[in-house]
């Protein structure tokens, strides 16, 4: 009976008892969710355009962040470092297309997945050679991102503290999603990207250049990686540990659907908020630490009911 009380009633009593704390927890979860969503977005872009699960997205985040900070350490002004970092992501995209994707055209998806795993380890090695292995501080204020915080009084109920950088992260994520959604659905290149993902042969026959499209999509994923690197870096450090955090995007993708940009966002928020709330209010029952696996359980439950994810394309095909 105690068990049931602890699971079903007590957490809600706690929530009602300290609403300011609940709001703070949800906000923290929301921000974590936005960051998961940003990473997931990078995966979705590549998947939509090439049907490849890009294992290297996590290391691209690290690589982008390190390039930015590394350049600034060498004495390059922050704004120029940002532009150069975008340039580096563009060069990386072209190289990936030329040396990895192009020779593997028409190979089974699993081969392409293996190639991205190989790329991951190559980029880890390259990053360590160029920038060294120790964590670096993100140049948050130099980039003009807000660093302060605002406390909201909730009458006599206490207060909620919002970090400005978190608000900035949410706004940037929202803008990116909006932009990408329009780009994919309404423009020629967006249509070409979807066409390539769907059928290489047919895409070639209508005059779409696979090479160009792939370079563009890897570049777009690189930009998303850079934004993610800046935002994650501002909250912790820029280090190779971020590469592991990126795999948190997996349950987000399962939840949101591999092909859906809004799905990445909603999925990110559900996972982010779900794991924070779960950890705080229910974690104690099993000795804490459920944050690290709760996301996967949530994703598994969703898989049972919607295998294509919340917003994934349910392809109904005549056979």
């Amino acid at each position: 009976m105690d068990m049931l009380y602890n699971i079903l009633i007590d957490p809600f009593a706690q929530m009602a008892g300290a609403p300011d704390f609940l709001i703070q927890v949800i906000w923290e979860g929301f921000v974590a969710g936005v960051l998961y969503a940003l990473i997931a977005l990078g995966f979705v872009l590549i998947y939509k355009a090439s049907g490849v699960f890009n294992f290297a997205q996590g290391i691209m985040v690290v690589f982008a962040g390190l390039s930015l900070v590394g350049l600034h350490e060498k004495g390059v002004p922050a704004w120029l470092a940002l532009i150069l970092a975008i340039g580096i992501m563009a060069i990386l995209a072209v190289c990936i297309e030329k040396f990895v994707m192009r020779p593997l055209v028409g190979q089974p998806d699993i081969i392409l997945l293996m190639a991205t795993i190989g790329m991951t380890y190559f980029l880890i090695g390259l990053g360590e050679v160029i920038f060294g292995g120790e964590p670096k501080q993100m140049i948050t204020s130099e980039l003009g991102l807000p660093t302060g915080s605002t406390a909201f009084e909730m009458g006599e109920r206490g207060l909620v503290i919002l970090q400005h950088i978190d608000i900035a992260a949410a706004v940037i994520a929202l803008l990116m999603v909006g932009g990408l959604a329009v780009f994919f659905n309404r423009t020629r290149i967006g249509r070409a990207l979807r066409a390539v993902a769907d059928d290489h042969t047919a895409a070639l026959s209508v005059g779409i250049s696979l090479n160009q499209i792939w370079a563009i999509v890897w570049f777009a994923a690189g930009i998303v990686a850079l934004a993610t690197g800046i935002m994650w870096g501002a909250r912790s450090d820029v280090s190779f540990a971020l590469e592991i955090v990126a795999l948190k995007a997996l349950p987000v993708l399962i939840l949101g659907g591999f092909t859906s940009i809004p799905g990445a966002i909603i999925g990110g928020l559900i996972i982010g908020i779900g794991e924070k709330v779960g950890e705080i209010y229910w974690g104690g029952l099993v000795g804490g630490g459920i944050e690290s696996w709760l996301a996967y359980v949530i994703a598994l439950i969703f898989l049972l009911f919607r295998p294509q994810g919340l917003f994934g394309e349910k392809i109904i095909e005549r056979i």
Partner: protein
Amino acid sequence: MNAFVDPAGMAGHSGLAKGEVLLRVDNVSLSFGGVKAITNISFDILKGEVRAIIGPNGAGKTSMLNVINGFYHPQEGTITWRGQVRRKMKPYEAASQGIARTFQNVALFKGMTTLDNIMTGRGLKMTKNFFWQCLHWGPALNEEIEHRRKVEEIIDFLEIQAIRKTPVGRLPYGLQKRVELARALAMEPELLLLDEPMAGMNLEEKEDMSRFILDVNQQFGTTIALIEHDMGVVMDLSDRVVVLDYGRKIADGPPEEVQSNQDVIDAYLGVPH
């Protein structure tokens, strides 16, 4: 009816007169490893005609189309397109120079709607750069609207208004074939390659498709090369027929002449070699 193709706006078309040689294939041989798919084939396609390529299964017909639009590169021989000799061509170059095609087993973008599928065919005609497209505003938006109008005209022409917003994966086979033709037409090609446009269709659908092919040829002056197994259709539609068997050309000429050719009859009836 043919409002969507204005002769002046046929960008990239050669300006050849009807009856001049649009494409010529000279001594082309193609093999995969030790397997010879095509052996020393030569023929030509004249501007404005309907050219049929026929032959038993495995005769090398589809390989021939793949050579023409650049999917395969022949080991020997040359292809002369609008008077320019070339050894090999990339598929998207072929597309940008006015060669469109459909596929034997329907290669559509299955997750996309009919409208989006046809719009991909306009891709080469849309020239506003990446930057404007990202903004989705100003010139890029105007361009999008203008091409959308053309696509609507093609949709009317092929009578597929009702399935405009349907993802093509859900359509019955006959309609998928029609959407594929629409996508090829959206490219406003000078040469249209059709790989078994009527395969798997019932009689009524075949009649519709035949009518569309003739309309395209007569109204827009589009040159058509088609592969087809239905002899009735081939004889009705085509001006000239080339017959392949085991990767070799065994006959070439007007339908009635080919029909009475002893080699052709043997190939189809299976005389022991």
